[in-house]
């Protein structure tokens, strides 16, 4: 721990003139006291300039009527009051939460199921784990492009598969539910395997003696899963849920490319998310002030969830010891 150990002068230094020796000692003392600050400073500098300042500045911008850079007027909270009665904003909030729920609930259930299957003694476990993680190599943009083609109305693979079940051609982009479903599928495809590995890590930490005891008591595997695995996995489940929440609330690329790059998320704004609405205001309509207000609302939503995250994790970590 203690690193104030002064470098003792090497034997040869004893013949060096005392002045130079003193200089060396002073230099090394300076090295010991200043180096730590020097080493950690890059992060703080970068965060100050590109993280903290933009966040604070967004708030200032959001208090202004700020159309183009340099041309602005202070209007207090009027952007926010306007937001509260802005149907397009609430539509985006509804879409964001709708897609978040449709995407996250099945995703986490499937991930649990997959993790449970992976948590067995099997041949080539690494190969299977890599297999379920495969979607992670693709970028969000690539996923969105491929799935949008698969969800095409006339020639898409999804409709081709569905027609075997008697479902008539779905125009996936055209209405709310179908576009939510299509976007959620993209999200789930990309993240289910990743989440299942996090669950798997949690499952491996559960002492096996619990299962042995339950087996002796005659509990079936199904029962063991629901009565032992799931309750003991709760910290992991909470963690994954909240990570998914933070990601889900910032949903942007998938719905954007699903609508061929249009920020409005379809002619009726069927799949426009809050992040897209922010972007649309700032970069398409050049209303930086209003866009910043949207950003702060989104930030507040995320912050509430993050705080929740922090409190829960701290509590669980404290409970373990």
């Amino acid at each position: 721990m203690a690193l104030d150990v002064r470098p003792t002068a090497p034997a040869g230094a004893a013949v060096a003139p005392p002045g130079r020796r003193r200089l060396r000692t002073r230099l090394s003392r300076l090295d010991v006291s200043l180096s730590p600050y020097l080493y950690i400073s890059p992060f703080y500098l970068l965060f100050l300039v590109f993280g903290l300042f933009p966040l604070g500045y967004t708030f200032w911008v959001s208090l202004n009527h700020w159309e183009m850079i340099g041309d602005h007027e202070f209007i207090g909270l009027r952007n926010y009051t306007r937001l509260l009665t802005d149907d397009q904003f609430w539509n985006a909030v509804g879409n964001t939460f709708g897609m978040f729920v449709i995407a996250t609930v099945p995703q986490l259930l499937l991930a649990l199921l997959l993790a449970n299957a992976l948590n067995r003694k099997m041949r080539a476990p690494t190969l299977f784990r890599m297999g379920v993680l495969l979607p992670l190599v693709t970028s969000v943009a690539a996923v969105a492009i491929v799935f949008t083609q698969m969800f095409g109305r006339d020639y898409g693979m999804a409709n081709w598969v569905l027609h075997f079940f008697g479902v008539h051609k779905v125009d996936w982009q055209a209405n709310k539910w179908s576009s939510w479903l299509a976007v959620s599928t993209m999200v789930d495809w990309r993240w289910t395997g990743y989440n299942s590995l996090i669950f798997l890590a949690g499952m491996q930490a559960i002492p096996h003696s619990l299962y042995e005891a339950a087996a002796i008591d005659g509990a079936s595997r199904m029962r063991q899963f629901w009565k032992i695995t799931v309750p003991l996995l709760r910290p992991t489940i909470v963690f994954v849920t909240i990570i998914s929440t933070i990601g889900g609330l910032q949903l942007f690329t998938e719905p954007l490319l699903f609508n061929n790059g249009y920020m409005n998320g379809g002619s009726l704004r069927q799949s426009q998310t809050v992040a897209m609405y922010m972007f649309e205001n700032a970069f398409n309509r050049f209303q930086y002030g209003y866009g910043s207000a949207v950003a702060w609302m989104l930030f507040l939503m995320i912050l509430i969830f993050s705080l929740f995250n922090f409190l829960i994790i701290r509590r669980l970590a404290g409970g373990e010891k």
Partner: protein
Amino acid sequence: MKAYIRGRTRAAVAGSARLWQASPLTYAVLIFAIVLSAFPLYWMFVVATRTNDVVGAVPPPFIAGQHLGDNMRRLFDNEQAHFAKALLNSAIASAVVALSTVFFSSLAGFAFAKLRFRGRNALLLVIVATMMVPVQMGIIPLYMVMVHLHWTGKLQAVIVPFLVTGFGVFMMRQYASQAVPDELIEAARVDGASTFRIFWSVVLPALRPAASVLALFTFMQTWNEFIWPRAVLNPDNPTVQYSLALLNSAYFNDYTLMFTGTVVATIPLAIVFVVFGRQIIGGIMEGAVKA
């Protein structure tokens, strides 16, 4: 009697495998999951090797064709996508960000884990707090900062803000505190090594496993970054993902062109994944990494 039974059952259980053996059903579930995971990737490749007739075909073709070369040529000759430039831009940005993140995170992680200085705990807490702030929501003012710096449309705009992350610092700090023995550092100190020399020749080698995981994830993340490059770069100097989006909005009927783009954009990460898959899985499962 009771003790006897307990002893017996325990012996019986201990004799069985520690984990349940995977049943054929388990294998079936997993193989089905892998097919679902792999299929869109496979489909991406199939379309990239065919002509646009494929889009209207019923049933869709499931076997690769012979037009990958033509499609590649069309992709790289396309004047709107600037694909070759985009690949180069992404490669530079991802490599620089990954290397720099690893270097500065290791340096700061070492300081937090092994050096003693005033305010250490408070400063570490600040880092943990920043990890919870989704900084990408500050893109509007970040964009304004870039306008003032005259960096819009330039590659440094997607590099400099991400040269070191709070997540990286925290990860390396956690690793350094358990992987580097204090005695080693003290011994080097007694030998007259400067703090940086200790970092470079004693600490950094010990941090290698965590550093490589951090580098891989940072590289993948930067390569796949979309929203910020889309906001700050220009269409004539894009990154790979931005270039894909450009293709998507200009040629949304030319599927073979777009899909060839996604294949080329995915290849570097697929190579990283195949070579370092084990480390990536280890990183995720240690809970240390969020992609």
